[in-house]
């Protein structure tokens, strides 16, 4: 009785079973479809680092025409929403309570200082408790003052052109909308949830309910069990990529400048380590509670925080940078951002793909050493 390692019929039966189970389990459906949409929506609307309309106060202590003109420049800036004031006290309390993120003081002797070229001309106070915002308040307020001075000088005909000027070109995202970078990155988060969390849970559930025991006593080989388990979630992951991409391009107006082929090829490559990790977790923890904890801790949070999705990896301390190298999402997030916003940059995709496949292979080898067709190992 010759036995082939893989029987298409057995495999098809396992895949069909798994698919029916996913479709009938509301909590799996929620994790696979509802949560991704919610996350995408939140990353589109709730999470935004875009700088516009920062609430600031402008304290106008001087009554001079120039002072009024500068104050008007602040009001006209698209970066600020200005609360005008006559004295510091009225705005400083608002900074403490967080209603304003800073204020600009145009001092009493502003006209005199301007006349004599005395510095400082104005004072900028920011709410340093939110460093990122504070940074932008400083930058843009300085910009407003400088532009105002230059316009003023130019009007008087004593233009003093600066020696060096920077001409910025914002590639791939001319408007610098954070949403454009976040939504492609969010696909990596969604795939981590499906590939690792969901897979770890469904395998743990088979152990918990005793069905794994029944399956193991049939002629099914361990490779078939693995493929039968992973293939449906692999496909589910790709479907989720497709759905998220359609939402991103149609609903949130993100361009897809690269090709669908590259997107799917790279997504498939990412699913290898994602599924491998899910498998490894379930081989280690045969109950759902521990599996969920491990998946959240070792897959979801690193994908969110150590992948360059929200925070620049280069700015992190060396130890954390090193750790991030074994986080598969770290190689997937930049690929996603590129394929959406830039195009097919294979010179970047290929090394990243190799890295993901290497991590995935390591996970599978580790999982394989723990998964045998036995209960007592």
């Amino acid at each position, binding site marked *: 009785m010759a036995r082939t390692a893989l029987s298409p019929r057995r495999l098809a039966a396992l895949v069909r079973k798994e698919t029916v189970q996913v479709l009938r389990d509301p909590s799996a459906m929620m994790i696979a479809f509802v949560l991704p949409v919610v996350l995408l929506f939140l990353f589109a609307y709730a999470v935004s*680092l875009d700088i516009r309309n920062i609430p600031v106060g402008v304290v106008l202590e001087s009554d001079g025409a120039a002072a009024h003109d500068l104050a008007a420049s602040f009001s006209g800036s698209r970066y600020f929403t200005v609360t005008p004031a006559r004295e510091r006290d009225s705005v400083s309390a608002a900074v403490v*309570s967080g209603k304003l993120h800073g204020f600009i003081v145009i001092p009493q002797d502003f006209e005199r200082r301007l006349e004599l070229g005395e*510095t400082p001309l104005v004072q900028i106070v*920011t709410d340093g408790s939110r*460093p990122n915002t504070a940074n932008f308040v400083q930058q843009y307020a300085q910009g407003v003052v*400088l532009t105002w001075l230059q316009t003023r000088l130019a009007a008087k005909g004593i233009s*003093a052109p*600066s020696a060096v*000027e920077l001409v910025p070109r914002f590639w*791939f995202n001319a408007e610098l909308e954070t949403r454009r970078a976040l939504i492609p990155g969010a696909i990596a988060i969604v795939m981590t949830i499906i590939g690792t969390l969901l897979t770890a849970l469904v395998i743990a559930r088979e152990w918990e309910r005793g069905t794994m025991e029944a399956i193991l006593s049939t002629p099914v080989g361990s490779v078939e069990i693995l493929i039968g388990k992973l293939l449906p979630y692999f496909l589910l992951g790709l479907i989720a990529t497709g759905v998220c991409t359609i939402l991103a391009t149609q609903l949130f107006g993100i361009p897809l400048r690269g090709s669908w082929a590259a997107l799917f090829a790279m997504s498939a490559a990412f699913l290898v380590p994602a599924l491998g990790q899910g498998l490894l977790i379930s081989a280690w923890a045969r109950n759902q509670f521990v599996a969920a904890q491990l998946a959240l801790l070792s897959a979801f949070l690193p994908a969110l925080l150590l992948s360059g999705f929200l925070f620049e990896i280069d700015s992190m301390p060396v130890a954390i940078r090193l750790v991030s190298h074994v986080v598969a999402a770290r190689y997937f997030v930049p690929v996603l951002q590129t394929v959406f916003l830039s195009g097919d940059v294979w010179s970047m995709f290929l090394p990243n793909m190799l890295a993901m496949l290497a991590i995935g292979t390591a996970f599978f080898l580790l999982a394989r050493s723990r998964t045998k067709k036995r209960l007592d190992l």
Partner: protein
Amino acid sequence: MRQMLTRLRAQIVKELLSVLRDPRSRFILLGPPFIQLTVFAFAMTLEVTNIRIGVYDMDNGRWSHELVQRVAAADFVREAVPVHGNAEMTDMVSRKEVLVGLVIADDFSSTVSAGGTGTVQVIVDGRSANAGQIAYGYLNRIVAGLNADLKPTALPPSDTVAVRHWFNPNLIYRWYVLPGLAGVLTMFITLLITALSISRERELGTFDQLMVSPATPLEIIAAKTIPSVLLGSILGTMMVLAGRFVFGVPFTGSFPLLIACLSLFTLSVVGIGLAISSLCATQQQAILGTFAVGVPMVLMSGFATPVENMPDVLQWMAQAIPLTHFMTIVEGSFTKALPLSDVLASAWPMAVIALVTLTGSIVFVRARLE
């Protein structure tokens, strides 16, 4: 009355033991939050440091060297990589080898020497919108310094404006992240302890055991609430202390007031946890439920990004999230010496949320009895 206290005590001891008796579950409770606190305190940063900049210097003259030298020496730059040709620049930016590219035209030095304005093209990778923008800002400052040295007659921009960052003069990002993290992690632990405590009893059948005992619905809810509030508050306090003494974030507010608000915060979170567990039949569902509710709450709370950047509808929704309000209090208490009136303004919404959700759970447990 005395009997009621005995019953309540027994239940509270039971809840605490369920979480704390087993060294493994004690570790699952205490280990991850503190590991996360440490890792995230360093990982979560919007500061821009240690970046690589590509430089395509077609000029190779005196002033371009001066500029490149100043850029390479800046403390946010790890390396200024020489690039030869536009194609290579495009490639390096596309591959994210560099965050920013400088392209200096071949007449740059001659233009500057002649008193004209030499322009430098800055290519910023828009895929990293925030970091790119900040790096561009830093470059502008370097150029402004160069301008001042080259043309002292023009207004020296570096001190045209005096900048003061209140509360955090050096804009240390950790000072911002740590207090917020304490709030986020406290919320997740409290949510998980609460959601699991009821669903565990239901799954294992001990909930029926409770229902036939003399314990009243009010007692059952109280006995679920008090230990979670206690554990959540203690963990939260430990994290606040770690923030102050281990991570060195200055604490300027009132400690007792913060702890009082922390208890109110955990109370309102417990209410949400009870609501989750009332919908979940198994521990599995409770974990997924906690996850599905917790993640959006964190994203909308203003922890990752400012609330005012969100659309109005989401801003209103954010008001129903206890974390939004606690975030204001805990951040304010650390660096801002937040006055009592501001603390109270953020505390009362948490009290309202707690009142609503806890009443809801009592109604629910009653309904189970009816």
